[in-house]
Each structure stands twice: as structure tokens, then as C-alpha cells.
């Protein structure tokens, strides 16, 4: 029944889309453009160029009518929401749940890297902070008082059964706590050149898991000269925190979501809603006064400052917003898993999220979503599957003659799944060298990355010269 609703909806949207396209004459214009692209010969007439040109033509022609893109979005949304209804595998939907968390993280990191142009290499730290906020404030970990619950209502209950915030109350809380830490570490660094931020965040990302593991019961803080103070058990150290509360059940009209069972579908739908809200907010952010500031700062810091833009403030806001998204993602992740441990949030997680942003397209919201989905699936299942497949394939001809046999033997044991960091590293380097704007580029970013022409380089030189002689 539900499946039918989604199918019919998709069909209706598709029909309306086609009607609209014909009405505004897309088919004629597109045919003309494509014909032109395929007629080109010479160096720009290679097959790859023709395919790329065709894609660009499709994007441009379709982009001319806002209704076409709106309808397309609606169709994508319909398919996205319908996915777990059609897929009966709980494992696969569970994978999709995790991908949603990472898409959310990638969207957040994109504010820092894509919009503000800052490199944050410790993004997982805020993810950890959000997750631990959930773990501490919505579990049996902190037992307060001795006699039953002290406060108990819809929002929050505190007692010897631990502190239990309602999931929906934790959303702003986790975001705020993460943003607070973002400001704490961003403020001293962001006054300086942007690249110091990279190293400080890298250090921050290394330290946070360490501090979390140190703040368990088995540890002590030193007071100097051999005197130590036992550390209160704040994070349960290396022993993880388990039994994190699930969100309360949701029953609205035909919707019945229960988070207590092992069914991954309610999580999936919750994730879709959260992502859609995030996309709307981030798109608005990009077009806002603040979004304009970030572009202006990337283009020319001095001119931006002279237009009244507080550069440090604008950067710090981006950093804090990114942290807030990460903290929120951490909350979602922790409640989904039901447990947190300090080693879930290492540098490799920060790198994974960075790869999503770079692969998809710095600054591009659809790009980052696609990048997030691809890398998340690569990370969780595709690499393992591919590795196993290659290993069996290699095994079938590793006794063959000479180089072919060597290739087979190599494939037989090629450790794709453990080579994740290398694959991510290669993606980062190749993207930056060959396609810095990403798979689905943001228009402005694509222009920024385009190598400057000879003339622009010359102008830059003159500018430097005049700056130095004091004649700006």
C-alpha cells in the first residue's frame, strides 16, 4: 500500500516534469545544444569532452527553468523517502542510516571548508563531543541522588537512574556544546592565518579522544611532584558508555516510529527529515549576508574588511556552525548505536568527512551530499565487497604464466579494505590536482580554482609591488 503511494507520486511528478519541459521548450533547446556539442571536432571534440559537454548542456538547459529543478528535487526526495520501504534488508537500511549521519557531517564540514575556505582537520572531535554529550546526558551513567528520580517530566529526568534528557531536547544542547568548544579552540587560532587552523584542529582532533579516555575512573590527574588526584569517572574512560537512550516514540497520524526495536527504518526517516531541514538552512545561509561575507573574504580579505566585514568573526561563526552540525551528528550517531567509545572519533573519521567534501565538490551542497553517500558506502561496504571480489578473481589465475600470474597473485591478496587511508589519500591528491572543484562543482568555486591567466598573474605582481612601495 505504502509502496503504491510512493510509486504513484513518482509517476505524477515525472509526468508533470515532462509536461513542463515540453511547455518551456527544453527539448528543442537541448537538442540544439547537444547537436552542437557532438558536431565539434578537433581537440575539444574527443569523446570525453563530448560527454562532459553534453552533461553541461543538460545541466544548463534544465537550470533555466526553476520549476524543473524543483520538480526534480521532489522526485529525488520521493525516491529517498521510499527507499527503505522497498528494501527489505535491515542491514542495508542500517548502512543507509549511517550514511545519513555522514552526509549530515559532510554538510556541516562544507560550511567550514567550502563556504569559509578554512581547513578543519579535527572535525571528528566535535562529532565526539556531540556523541558524549548524548552519552552523558541520556544514559544511566551519571547517577544523581539516592532515592528514585528527583525531577521527572517529559523533557528531562534526573535521579539514581542517571540523567535522561529527551532526545529532542538534546538536539540544541549537543549543537550548542559542540559550538562552544568550536569557539573555544577557533577563537585564538582564527585571528591568525587560516592554515594555522589546520594544525590546531589536527591537534585538537588527536587530543579529544585522548582526554576522553583519560577521564575515566582508572586515571588520576597529577598535582605536581608525585601527588595525584583521582579523576572522577566522567567518561568511563576506555570502558565506553553503554545504554544510551533512544528517542521517544513518535506517533503522528499515519506515522508510527518506534526507536526501541532493531528496525532501522524509523531512524532512516528521521534522518531524511533532519537532512532536508539542514539543506534548507544551509542553502539559506549561503545566500545570506553571512554567506556573502565568506565569499568576499575568500576573494579579497582587505576589500572585505574595508566593507565592514569582521573577518575573524565571520570565520569563527563558520567554524562554530560546522562544529554545531558535527555535534548534532554525534548525538544522532550515539543514540543510533546506543554506545560510544573514545576511539570512534579518530583522525581517520575527520579525513573521511573531508574526502566526502572534496570528492563531491567544495562548497556545493548537492556535491557534498553525493560525496557523502559515495564515501560512506565505500567505507562501510563497497570496499570490503570489492576487495573480496578481487581476491577471488585473482585467485583464479594466480598460477598463470609470468606477469599475469603475478597480477593474479597480487589481486588474490590485495588488501583493499585495509588500504582505506591510501585510497582516501589518493582521492584527495588526484582531486586537488585534476578536478579541484569536485564531481558536482559549485559554480563560483569552479572559477576560483581555474588557474589564473598570464595577465592576472601579471596584475597580481604589480599589486604586490605597489603594496610594498606603499602606494596601494
Amino acid at each position, binding site marked *: 500500500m505504502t509502496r503504491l503511494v510512493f510509486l504513484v507520486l513518482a509517476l505524477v511528478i515525472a509526468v508533470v516534469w515532462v509536461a513542463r519541459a515540453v511547455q518551456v521548450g527544453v527539448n528543442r533547446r537541448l537538442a540544439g545544444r547537444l547537436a552542437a556539442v557532438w558536431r565539434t571536432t578537433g581537440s575539444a571534440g574527443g569523446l570525453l569532452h563530448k560527454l562532459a559537454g553534453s552533461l553541461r548542456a543538460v545541466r544548463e538547459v534544465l537550470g533555466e527553468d526553476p520549476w524543473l529543478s524543483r520538480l526534480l528535487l521532489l522526485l529525488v526526495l520521493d525516491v529517498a523517502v521510499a527507499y527503505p520501504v522497498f528494501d527489505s534488508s535491515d542491514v542495508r537500511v542500517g548502512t543507509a542510516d549511517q550514511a545519513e549521519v555522514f552526509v549530515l557531517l559532510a554538510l556541516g564540514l562544507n560550511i567550514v571548508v567550502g563556504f569559509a575556505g578554512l581547513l578543519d582537520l579535527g572535525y571528528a572531535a566535535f562529532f565526539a563531543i556531540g556523541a558524549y554529550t548524548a552519552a552523558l546526558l541520556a544514559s544511566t551513567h551519571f547517577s544523581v541522588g539516592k532515592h528514585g528520580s528527583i525531577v521527572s517530566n517529559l523533557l528531562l529526568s534526573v535521579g539514581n537512574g542517571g540523567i535522561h534528557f529527551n532526545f529532542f531536547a538534546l538536539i540544541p544542547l549537543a549543537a550548542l556544546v559542540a559550538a562552544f568548544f568550536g569557539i573555544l579552540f577557533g577563537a585564538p587560532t582564527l585571528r591568525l592565518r587560516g592554515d594555522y587552523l589546520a594544525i590546531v584542529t589536527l591537534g585538537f582532533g588527536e587530543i579529544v579522544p585522548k582526554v576522553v579516555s583519560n577521564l575515566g575512573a582508572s586515571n588520576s590527574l597529577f598535582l605536581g611532584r608525585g601527588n595525584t588526584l583521582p579523576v572522577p569517572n566522567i567518561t568511563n574512560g576506555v570502558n565506553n558508555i553503554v545504554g544510551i537512550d533512544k528517542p521517544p516514540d513518535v506517533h503522528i497520524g499515519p506515522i508510527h516510529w518506534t526507536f526501541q526495536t532493531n528496525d532501522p527504518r524509523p531512524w532512516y526517516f528521521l534522518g531524511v527529515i533532519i537532512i532536508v531541514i539542514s539543506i534548507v538552512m544551509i542553502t539559506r545561509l549561503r545566500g545570506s*549576508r553571512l554567506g556573502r561575507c565568506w565569499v568576499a573574504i575568500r576573494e579579497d580579505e582587505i576589500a572585505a574588511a*574595508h*566593507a*565592514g566585514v569582521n573577518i575573524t568573526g565571520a570565520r569563527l561563526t563558520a567554524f562554530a556552525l560546522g562544529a554545531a552540525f558535527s555535534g548534532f551528528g554525534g548525538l544522532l550517531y550515539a543514540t543510533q548505536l546506543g554506545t560510544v567509545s573514545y576511539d570512534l572519533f579518530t583522525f581517520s573519521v575527520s579525513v573521511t568527512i573531508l574526502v566526502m567534501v572534496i570528492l563531491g565538490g567544495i562548497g556545493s551542497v548537492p556535491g557534498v551530499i553525493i560525496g557523502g553517500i559515495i564515501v560512506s558506502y565505500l567505507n562501510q561496504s563497497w570496499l570490503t565487497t570489492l576487495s573480496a571480489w578481487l581476491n577471488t578473481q585473482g585467485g583464479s589465475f594466480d598460477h598463470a604464466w609470468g606477469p599475469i600470474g603475478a597480477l593474479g597473485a597480487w589481486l588474490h591478496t590485495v588488501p583493499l579494505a585495509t588500504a582505506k587511508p591510501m585510497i582516501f589519500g589518493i582521492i584527495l591528491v588526484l582531486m586537488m590536482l585534476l578536478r579541484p572543484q569536485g564531481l558536482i562543482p559549485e559554480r563560483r568555486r569552479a572559477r576560483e580554482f581555474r588557474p589564473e591567466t598570464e595577465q592576472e598573474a601579471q596584475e597580481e605582481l604589480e599589486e604586490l609591488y605597489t603594496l610594498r612601495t606603499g602606494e*596601494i
Partner: protein
Amino acid sequence: MAQPPVLLETQALTRSFGGLTAVDNLDFVVRKDEIVSLIGPNGAGKSTVFNLISGIYPPTAGRILFKGVNIAGLKPDRVERQGIARTFQTLRLFANMTVLENVLVGFHSRLKSNVIEDLIRPPWVARAERDAVEEARQLLRMLGQRLYTQQEFRAADLAYADRRLLELARAMASQPDLLMLDEPTAGMNPSEAADFMELIRRVHDRGFTILLIEHNLSVVMGVSQRITVLDYGLKISEGTPDEVRRDERVIEAYLGRKAATA
């Protein structure tokens, strides 16, 4: 006749770079609704004066009073919020932003919205943004039909003279109390420069107080009410255009320099 109130006043303004004193004990005044020009040969320290006022670097000594408040040493964004906007001799546009977006950045300090408002865009923010866009378009139209029709162009794709106009528009957008223009006619031919000066007069008529840097004395003769002449960081002359033109020291500074470099 009562003089209009003083808007900007520098007192013993000094800046040295290492051993070189680029601006030396400079005192000068801009009154409200004036067009004042700062002229001098290359390397006289004119741009340094601008950079000191707009906060690119702090003065070594001296004060800069704007509306009676000392603004010396403030960062550029704080100076802008006090009501001073400027352009640059070498043109500093946001090359990959559109013409309209460039002007909208100029509206930055007039539009007030916080992060949360930027994220959710409530109706009042959307309305303020729409009004700003409308005002920006009017500003562009006032500066010339060509710029107005090219408002969706990338700034880098504009013709040179239009880029100068755009930078002027961005500076005007914040409705500053003082508009500082750094050699706005640099790179223009005499007839273009004359047109531009005519435009500056129109801008002045709309209630802007203007401080102008110019290398070439004849360009600013017609528009300036008062002129201050700098040479080697020192003020060598001051007065009405006619007074300055007749001043021996000015003639010597210009001719002497020319003779030396010829």
C-alpha cells in the same frame, strides 16, 4: 559665514617604515560636505595617509579624529562602521562575485542579521535583503546605465572603467559619512577622467563628503574645494585650487621631480 563642522582631522599624523618616514607630522582637515583632494608626486605618501585612516596599519604617532573620536589604530572593519568607506588605486573587487553581489557586500554594515536569522531567513530579513537589492540596483543605475544592465556579470568580466565605477558603488553602498577615493582616474585617458570627475561631482551633490587622492593636479582642479599637497611625506601647501596652483613649492615639487626623473 559659519564653516561647516569638521568631519575628519589628522593631528601630527606620522608613519615610518624602518628608516623611511612616509608621512611626517601631517595635519589636515576635511569638513562636512566638502570635496578635498590630497595630491602630490609619486611616493609622496598619499596612499599611506589613506591606509592609516582606513586602518590597514596603525600610525607611528599622531591622532586621527573622525567626528571627534580618535580612530587611529582601529581595524578596517571598525573604521568602516564609524562611517568611512574607501576605494583602492589598484582596484580590489570580488572578482568572482557578480556586480550586484559586490555592491551588496557594501551593504554589510547596514544590514543587521544574526546567525540564526541567516540560517532560517525570517520574513523581516528577507524583506531587508530585497530592499537592499533594490537600493543596490538604483545605485548602479545612478552610476550609469551600462553598469546597471551588467548587474549579473562577474566583476572580473567588466571593462576597466566599469570596474572603477563598481568599486565606487560598493563604497557608496554603506552610505558613509566620508568617502575616500584613491586615484579613481588612474589608468583612464583624459576624457574618461574628466567624465569620472563629473560623476564625482554628482555623487557629492547627493550629500557625500569626499576625500580624493590624485597624482595629477589638473584633474582635481575643477572639483576640489580645497587641496592639500604632499611631498616626501610632508605637507608643502594647502588651500583653494588657485592658491595651490600658484604656490612656488608645489611647482618646484612637480617640476623638480620631473626634471630629476627625465
